[in-house]
């Protein structure tokens, strides 16, 4: 294993009875990198997260997080990771600050200041509010804050923006980016392709317990999309559409001509979306 890897997963598998949920998958994440884990419900994302965070042990294979074996040195590993769950599993009868303070005490953090963390997620004015009085978006931001109480070196986020309003989603994406910039390795599960595209340095497509592909969004788009642009232009009342293949020998000239055309309306690249690529690779959508 490279010493620089924050997470190194080798050939892990897990099954529920006869159902093989995760089938021999391997990947790694570098410090400061955001890895998007994409797949439909039941693909094996959550089981993989459970194994990564020490909730269940893989039936085979190995997981090393920050140099710690996730099974043998579970407590040491867990003291350096932060987890944000899909379920809003907060203590509803406790205030936002009390929720954070409780989790800080599990990490034995001296002089913990919940206000600073709440300020980061724009909830400082809700510090004394019972969690049951917070909106869904606020709860999710509090969940995000909770995952950061120990200033983790690895951040595991399960559907962090699922069903949120644009303001809350934006706030969470900003924090994820800040954490990666600080040097934390981030694993993010989502079935929102757009979010994965915007946030992830690399994405892994998981389907039926296996990783179908793992690469940067750009490389995937290049590999699976068309290298062409679609040009729309107006000539009087007529609207014409022209596809320019970027691999063709005349591509540069054709594109120059299209751009110079006085009736030019729009130019669109024909690159594939992550969703198109996922469907191409797995034969199914994300829902």
């Amino acid at each position, binding site marked *: 294993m490279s010493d620089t890897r924050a997470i190194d997963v080798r050939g892990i598998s897990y099954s529920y009875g006869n159902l093989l949920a995760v089938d021999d998958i391997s990947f790694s994440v570098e410090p400061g990198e955001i890895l998007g884990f994409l797949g439909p419900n039941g693909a094996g994302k959550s089981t993989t997260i459970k194994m990564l*965070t*020490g*909730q*269940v042990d893989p039936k085979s294979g190995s997981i090393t997080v920050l140099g710690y074996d996730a099974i043998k040195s579970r*407590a*040491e590993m*867990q*003291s*350096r*990771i932060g*987890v944000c*769950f899909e*379920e809003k*599993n*907060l*203590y*509803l*009868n*406790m205030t936002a600050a*009390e929720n954070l303070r*409780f*989790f800080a*005490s*599990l*990490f*034995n*953090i*001296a002089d913990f200041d919940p206000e600073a963390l709440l300020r980061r997620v724009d909830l400082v004015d809700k510090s004394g509010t019972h969690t049951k009085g917070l909106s869904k978006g606020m709860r999710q931001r509090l969940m995000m804050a*909770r995952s950061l109480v*120990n*200033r983790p070196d690895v951040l595991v986020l399960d559907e962090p923006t699922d069903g949120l309003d644009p303001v809350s989603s934006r706030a969470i994406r900003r924090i994820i980016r800040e954490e990666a910039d600080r040097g934390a390795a981030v694993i993010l599960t989502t079935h929102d392709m757009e979010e994965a595209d915007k946030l992830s340095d690399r994405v892994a497509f998981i389907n039926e317990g296996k990783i179908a592909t793992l690469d940067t969004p750009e490389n995937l788009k290049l590999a699976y999309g068309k290298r062409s642009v679609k040009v729309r232009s107006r000539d009087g009342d007529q609207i014409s559409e022209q596809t320019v293949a970027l691999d063709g020998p005349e591509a540069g000239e054709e594109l120059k001509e299209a751009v110079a055309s006085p009736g030019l309306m729009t130019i669109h690249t024909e690159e594939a979306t992550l969703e198109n690529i996922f469907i191409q690779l797995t034969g199914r959508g994300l829902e």
Partner: protein
Amino acid sequence: MNPSVSRFAIIRAIVGKDLREFSRDKFFMLITVLGLVAYVALYWFLPSDVEESISVGIHQSGMDSLFAELEEDGGIEFTLVESRVDLETALGFGDSEPDNKLDIGLEFPPDFLSTVSAGEVASVSVLVGPEVPQEIRSAMSSMVREIAYALAGDELPVTRLPEEEIILGQDRAGSQVPIQDKFRPLLAFFVLIMETMALGALVAAEIQSRTVTAILVTPAKVSDFLAAKAILGTLLAFSQVTLLMVLVRGFDNNAPLMITTLLLGSALVTGFGLLIGSSGKDFLNQIFYSMALLIPLSIPAFGVLFPGAAGPFVQLLPTFGLVDAMVGISIDGAGWRDVASSLGMLAAWVLIAFALGLTLLKRKVQTL
């Protein structure tokens, strides 16, 4: 962040969090406070002594000395009245409630003495209220017959068999246990059971909302979580049952022994609380499991109120040792040696309840 987090610090943090959550649960706080107040009020409302004698009103003539003699034997208080109307009034058959209501009335005809002395049949009226049990009515009829035989100078038509009285346990003739004291174990049991349900609800909520998962991805281990719940349950149950026992004079006899018994009892119900909390999928489900457990568990405590009502199987129930020890200590003044077997049984059940509760909870937590 400190990587070497002590187990003690983690358990203390979880217990502190649970206490805060419990104190903010309005439903359980309300039933806890109301329950305690109601139980203490009920205890002090119940009679603290036992009325062991029967008050009998007599309307007769010429037999004053006979009844004075019978009264000296004890157990029956005779009140002589002037007329049948006075007798009925004293028994509460009239329009107004008498100051000292009599239990039973006997009206002897004016010629009773001469009639029975002549060996003839006399008729005596026995007046009883509907609440007087049949055995008391029969006893009164027998007494009248015995008086008649005595006055007539005849022997009773049966030979009195030689008898030996064997008292099983402590002979309480003349010192019956007041209903107040009989209720004490039942009240303590109710407080413990209330806490079983509260702990069950707390554990179930932690599982259903999956907050336990959030705890278990920190340095906290499953064993820390289980230990915290066990400590919390025992602490809550013990503090409340101790407070109740202080308020109902439960520590008058051998307080250290009673405290030990209550501590074991608190641990027992905590084991069951963990079991209930791990079993229930939702509130209704949890109530179902609570009732399924609580009904058999309450039988020994009710057995104190209604001696003989429960069969020998009662000794197999987990709460028998608890109730038996509490009764022994608070009513019979039993010592360590006297209740050793009950406490041993109770301790064994504590281990079983904890083993079951913790195993089920562990399995539940690990499969979330």
